[in-house]
């Protein structure tokens, strides 16, 4: 509770500073904006924009479109990345080929794929999905591989003496034993997927749906900085919520079970 209050006070102060700079705290004598509202719109204008567009359904609809792309791309990235990572940990020939490729491509920000994706798939959903998958796949692959390699060999030996077949050992021993690595890889993959999708949506206009990133793009085109800032808020909010709802519980469970709690 105390920690929550400290967070809350911090963010209220941050918004107050912003409001003060944009001349919205008249009762404190701060009634003049330091910059033109075009450069830095006030919190009130941004809130008004978010409120209006939430009520008229534009933001919720574009959120739906964006999240759909994100979840599908991320899921494909996971479904490909985890088994490929397992293969790469298991077979030297796979890690010498695919593993090295993954290491290289992971260093490449996936927004670099946008030009090629547009040529290959046109301005379609597929182009956006491709960029998201390129963002997710490699980091999930590498962390799965890394996790499996770090599993103490004694676990597999113990399982074998208990009559566990090689496939059973892989699924019920090696994979859960590498869970801490896999989960942190999934988390990193999620962050990469979200960043790449935003970049892709800003660059590529797709007729099949108007995503959150495209609102940011048009905010820039129409010189509506309050729209840009409002959409930025939403992007931050989605990232935060995903962390708190999807990953924090899984990580907390892992820490409790493994005894790696800091407190």
């Amino acid at each position, binding site marked *: 509770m105390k920690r929550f209050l400290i967070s809350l006070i911090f963010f209220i102060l941050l918004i107050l500073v912003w409001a003060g700079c944009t001349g919205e705290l008249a009762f404190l004598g701060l009634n003049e904006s330091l910059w033109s509202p075009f450069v830095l719109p006030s919190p009130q204008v941004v809130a008004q924009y978010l409120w209006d567009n939430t009520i008229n359904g534009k933001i919720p609809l574009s959120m739906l479109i964006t999240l759909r792309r994100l979840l599908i791309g991320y899921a494909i990235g996971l479904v490909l990345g985890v088994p490929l990572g397992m293969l790469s940990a298991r077979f030297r020939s796979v890690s010498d080929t695919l593993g090295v490729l993954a290491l290289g491509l992971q260093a490449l920000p996936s927004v670099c794929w946008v030009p090629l994706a547009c040529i290959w798939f046109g301005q379609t959903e597929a182009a956006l999905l491709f960029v998201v998958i390129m963002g997710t796949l490699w980091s999930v692959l590498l962390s799965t591989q890394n996790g499996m390699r770090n599993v103490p060999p*004694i676990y597999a*030996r*113990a399982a074998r003496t*208990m*009559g*566990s077949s090689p496939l059973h050992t892989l699924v*019920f021993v090696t994979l859960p*034993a590498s869970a801490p690595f896999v989960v942190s890889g999934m988390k990193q993959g999620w962050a990469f997927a979200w960043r790449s999708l935003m970049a892709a949506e800003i660059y590529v206009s797709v007729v099949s749906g108007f995503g959150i990133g495209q609102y940011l793009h048009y905010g820039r085109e129409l010189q509506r900085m309050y729209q840009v800032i409002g959409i930025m808020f939403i992007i931050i909010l989605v990232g935060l919520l995903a962390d708190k709802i999807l990953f924090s519980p899984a990580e907390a469970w892992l820490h409790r079970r*493994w*005894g790696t709690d800091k407190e």
Partner: protein
Amino acid sequence: MHDKLDKEINAFPTAKLSVEHVCKDFRTRNGTVRALDDVSLTINEGEFVCFVGPSGCGKSTLLNIIAGLEKPDSGLALIDGVPITGPGRDRMVMFQEHALFPWLDVIGNVMFGLKQKPNLTDKERLEVAKYYLFLVKMDRFAHSNIHELSGGMRQRVALARSLAPNPKILLMDEPFSALDAMTRERLYGDIQDVWEKRRKTIIFVTHNVREAVCLGSRVILFSPHPGRIREQFPVSLTRPRNINDHDLADLSMQITSALKGYTAAESD
């Protein structure tokens, strides 16, 4: 259903083990090391045998060959006359490190081996797991996480896990060497108790002569370079034995001096 459960728990499978002319080499950077050199041995049903010797004498290697985790270069290991070709449910291993799975709780660990055993429902498996946790006095900790247990408690759970599938043979590879003296003494009592109740064939590997004399019905002395069986000592002291007992100390002194003789001759 209860009949089946009683049958499972009250079955006391045990086996005769024979090792015939087993040789095993290990290649290292400094050449080939002969870990086992023409080792032959017979262990009877329900016998508690301890392998003792300094490191490098091949005692753990022989245990791994019996477990099916390693293959001999030549020779055979047989259970009731059937050659060992790989790991099997009839032989369970307890390792030096507890090797419990940290992603499962205590009961989940005990259930792991049981789940590989056919012809039991999950409900029956759970009952069996509870029985063995009770046997090692860990039933109160069924839902604890592994990291919450002390070293001695972990080895008790590891013992329950290897007993639960009701193997014929229990193979123990220096299971108490990482524990403090007090905990170890308590476990000596427990393991003798378990052996009497479950009547298994047990092979216990250790470098501690006193521990071997305390536990084994027979102590088998190994010497290194190359790994060979040098001498065997039957131990007929009454059970339960206390490691601080006088007669026990006398016998272990005898064995220790024999052991010293072999290793001294080697270093000359």
